[in-house]
């Protein structure tokens, strides 16, 4: 009984880990390249979730296609935001950089509240895959989809960074911006590219959110807080660390909710305890490097 519960809990954790990894890897990429934490990253996820939701509920676009469209829309929005606004704070002091994306986050959340009310909505799409039965343990179909899409997004990013010319330039700009400038890399273009990729992954992740969670203006806040913890675990700027961080966090959360009495109400408290502890023990994250500190 206990062991079934444990396996069930860990399997569900694994599927949420796919979603967390997709969100956190976009956040960590943007930070690694630009040195800016995008506090509005969660709001791009939220907008993606609303878009997928409305595309399905109002127009009847299937969720998977909706996800792709959401990803593209958020890429476009990221472009707009970066060129119109964020590119101007890149050289400012840190408090202005922090404030800039927080301002954007507040703006988007409240616009969403005005447009769609603060109420939570649930997308009534039929499961995209049949549930997976492993002995006594059942994994719902949509959780499988989240796991698969999340991993695909994450793997796509890793592939892009390792095997394309643009990815190589991105890594160069992240590792050593001065060297990148000397090598003739257009650093501003790389900064923009990191935000475009971040927007794309956020938009698609939003679709995943609509599939297994709820759709609501504040849903991005919940998720981005967890992403911070993941990024703290994995090291700010480390995409590889994001996956490990995501698995660790969602395992910790699910285990707490399952086995600690009243642990379900801890919510993302687990995440914050992790943030504080990890940063205290290792200021650049468990798997991070020292260079951006």
């Amino acid at each position, binding site marked *: 009984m206990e062991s079934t519960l444990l396996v069930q809990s860990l399997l569900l954790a694994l599927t949420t880990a796919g979603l967390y990894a997709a969100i956190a890897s976009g956040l960590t990429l943007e930070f690694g390249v630009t040195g800016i934490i995008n506090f509005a990253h969660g709001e791009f996820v939220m907008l993606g979730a609303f878009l997928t939701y409305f595309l399905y509920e109002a127009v009847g676009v299937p969720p998977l296609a909706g996800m792709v469209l959401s990803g593209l829309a958020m890429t476009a929005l990221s472009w707009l935001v970066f060129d119109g606004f964020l590119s101007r704070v890149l050289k400012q002091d*840190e408090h202005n950089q922090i404030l800039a994306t927080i301002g954007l986050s507040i703006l988007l959340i409240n616009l969403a509240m005005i447009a769609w009310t603060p109420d939570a909505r649930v997308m009534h799409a039929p499961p995209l895959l049949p549930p997976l039965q492993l002995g006594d343990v059942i994994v719902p179909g949509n959780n499988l989809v989240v796991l698969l899409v999340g991993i695909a997004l994450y793997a796509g990013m890793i592939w892009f960074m390792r095997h394309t010319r643009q990815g190589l330039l991105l890594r160069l700009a992240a590792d050593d911006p001065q060297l990148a400038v000397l090598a003739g890399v257009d650093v501003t273009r790389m900064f923009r590219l990191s935000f475009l990729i971040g927007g794309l992954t956020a938009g698609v992740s939003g679709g995943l959110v609509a599939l297994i969670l709820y759709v609501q203006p504040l849903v991005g806040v919940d998720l981005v807080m967890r992403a911070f913890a993941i990024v703290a675990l994995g090291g700010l700027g480390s995409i590889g660390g994001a996956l490990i961080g995501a698995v660790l966090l969602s395992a910790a959360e699910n285990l707490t909710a399952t086995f600690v009495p009243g642990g379900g109400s801890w919510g993302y408290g687990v995440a914050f305890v992790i943030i504080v502890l990890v940063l205290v023990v290792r200021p650049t994250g468990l798997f991070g490097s020292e260079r951006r500190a």
Partner: protein
Amino acid sequence: MKTGLTRLLPYVLILLVTLALVWIDKPFWIQLAIGVAITAITALAWDILSRTGQVSLGSAAFFGIGSYTLAIFEPLIGLTLAWVAVVVVCALAATLLGLLTLRLRRMYFAIATLGFALSMQVLVVVFPDWTGGSGGIAPPVLADGDPRWQLGLIGLLLLAAVALSDTLLGLRFRPAFFMIRTKPELAAASGVPVVHMKIFAFIVSGVLIGLAGACYGGLYGYVVPTDVFTTNWSVLPLAIATLGGMDTTIGPLLGAIVLKALEEVARSVIGGTGYQVVYGAVIILFVIGMPQGIVGLLRKAGKLAGRRTATGEKKKERERHA
């Protein structure tokens, strides 16, 4: 480099406005002034901390700890000692957080302080026997619920915050703080005990925010965790200080007045849901348009208006300093 008159301006302004509002006794304006004063205190406190290079997103932790400490200790040790407890507990929490985050820089520091603030909220929910959980807690009502006295008390706290901020902008602290912010090694090589100074700034900042939080909790005698531990109380001080003008005393005051006024306008136009959209819009416009804040803008205007007279006065002022 201010003249004696502008140095006194904030004190005179606060005294006059507070007394005038107490005298005319219009509830709306008193409530508005209380809101401005409380946010201004938190912004001044945030600014004091930021002068040592610690850009915090954890103000909400102290705001909440302040109101909760007052509520928890008042039945146990009486009202007066409970206020002392607010100071002590906030100072301890500030020391703890300051030591934990000592080695963190920039964004890491911001994230860790944010994490601390949100952990506090969870802590309250996890130990409901002590804290009332998510149902909230009842701190003693401030000044028996008379809004005019409430404003008077909070005005006094604001005056204290202004005086502290000015003191810390004096020759004894400002250069050392700025040196710690720009290059801590250089400060240490000048004999500054960097760790002590950073923790000291953290304590001053945390205690001020905690006292503001305790006042806030005492306004109605009832708070729930999401009132005081909300990220709003972490973001507002940063936003107000930056919009008004960092490293100054008048900046956070101006910022609080402007932002609260805009909030009221937005609340009446948009309504209760989503009115904070104005925060987002204002922040973005400021960050793009005037990153040095209102004070920076005024300085620039002042420079253009009377470069000659200004430099003449500056010289005189500096000679007086020497």
